[in-house]
């Protein structure tokens, strides 16, 4: 029995979207994932299915602001409502490692699981009419044909900043458990009660930035010169 998941370091993440594109590359034609198609990829409004999306936020007030690059994919929740609400049995959570999967052979494309997911981790594949989601690269992590170092999800291998870590949260000696304990890793949207497995390591404390000196009072020579310079630039 294990509880596989990701620990994502928000201090290290630079928001480059390499994890998201590596995911598309591996899962695009994966039989386990069912594929992650693109719609009109070279047209004026390309769209498609992504199992992992990176978004960018800013917290706090100037000058104490912090940028947060937040990759969001399936959290492989312990109380996964997407599995509970699925009427067909297509969505299931594996007892042995806790990975949440969709069986495209059973899915009827009702979108109900996507409604139940707060993280936007499930997207409908319009070409087959069945639901898609992160498989934690279940077709990599157990593949004996791969060298042991490569038996990890594609997103983890691709991350150039080493911001993503994969492992078993039930094993206190695993990298993910150690990082979570040492850095105070947190789950996202905990109050919904789905008990997500993935952990986000908050950025380390930053140096204090002093507030800038007060701007020169209006009407002084310095202020007038500054206004003049600004106007000249805009000519």
């Amino acid at each position, binding site marked *: 029995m294990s509880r596989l998941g990701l620990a994502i370091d928000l201090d290290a993440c630079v928001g480059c979207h390499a994890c998201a594109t590596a995911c598309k590359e591996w899962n695009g034609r994966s039989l386990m994932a069912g594929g992650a198609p693109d719609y009109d990829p070279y047209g004026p409004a390309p769209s498609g299915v992504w199992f992992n999306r990176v978004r960018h936020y800013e917290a706090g*007030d100037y000058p104490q602001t912090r940028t947060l690059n937040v990759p969001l994919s399936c959290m492989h929740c312990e109380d996964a409502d997407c599995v509970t*609400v699925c009427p067909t049995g297509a969505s299931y959570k594996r007892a042995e490692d806790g990975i949440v999967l969709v069986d495209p052979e*059973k899915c009827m494309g009702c979108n109900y699981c996507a409604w139940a997911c707060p993280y936007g981790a499930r997207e409908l594949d319009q070409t087959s009419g069945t639901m898609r989601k992160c498989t934690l690269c279940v077709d990599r992590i157990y593949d004996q044909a791969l060298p042991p170092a490569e038996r990890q999800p594609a997103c983890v291998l691709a991350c150039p900043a080493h911001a993503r870590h994969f492992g078993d949260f039930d094993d206190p000696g695993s990298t993910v458990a150690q990082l979570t304990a040492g850095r105070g890793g947190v789950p996202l949207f905990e109050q919904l009660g789905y008990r997500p497995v993935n952990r986000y390591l908050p950025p380390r*404390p930053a140096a204090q930035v002093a507030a800038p000196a007060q701007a020169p009072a209006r009407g002084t020579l310095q202020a007038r010169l500054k206004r003049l310079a600004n106007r000249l630039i805009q000519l």
Partner: protein
Amino acid sequence: MKPALSVILFTVSSGAGLGLVVWLAIAQLAGRVAGGSTPWWAGVGLAALLLTGGLLSSTAHLANPRNGWRSLARVRSSWLSREALSALLLYPLAALHVALTLAGSPAAALSAGLLIVLALLTVVCTAMIYACLKTVPRWRTWHTPAVFVLYALAGGGLLWSALLASVPAAGATPAAAGPSGSALATLLVLAALVKVGYFAKFSARVSATLNDALAVPLAAPAGHVQGRVRLLDVGHAHPTFLTDEFGFDLPRPRAVRLRAAMLLLTAVAPLTLLWFGAAGVWLAAVAFLVGSGLERWLFFAQAQHVVRLYHGQPQV
């Protein structure tokens, strides 16, 4: 949430059909309509039409309807499975009830009672599909099942009264065989009151913020990430499945106008029209059903999924 026409038609049409089943069974149990009479057959036919039409419409919402038959697989955990099962069980039970009634069997009273229970159960299951979702705070309230049941009973009651006004039961006046005017008026007023209470409850309520979604505290020791979070970049350039499904926006002034129109159609108009004889009852039923469609459209259009937080909405 995207107000999908297939789901709106499904909940309104099957709801009214199930309400009609309830009133028909009550009238039969009370001995106010004879089994096998013209108005009875009219009621049975209309209920079957509305329920079947609604269920067929719901399959239009499926992206892969070939697997629709599998929807009964998770009755133990999924309200959608439970809804499908109880709706499908209605057909053999209704067929049995029709056979027992035509045979003049006293067991028809039992099957009528079971039909009332199963029809109401189906409406509750339909409502719980939405009310059980923690991700849509505006659905997760007792108002959802209350509105679905009240609207089903009111819509079915108005349709039954309208049918009786056109095809009177032999030896009985329409008023005696159908739901009484005061019963219908009570249902309409109750439904409107629950809706107004629902609007009041959620008009200014904040259920979750972007800070909750990203687990960022508003205040923390100096240097730690803290304070109000805002979106810098959403990470996609064009609409995605998530924005299509959950990004529907209804400007507030338009929402207020539509709410007023909805209350006008589902309460004021039918309550007034009920006074004007047979034609009035039909008009009241039509006004109410159109208003129900508007109510259901608003139910979806104004529900806000928490994934909108990650797309930059500060709160839902």
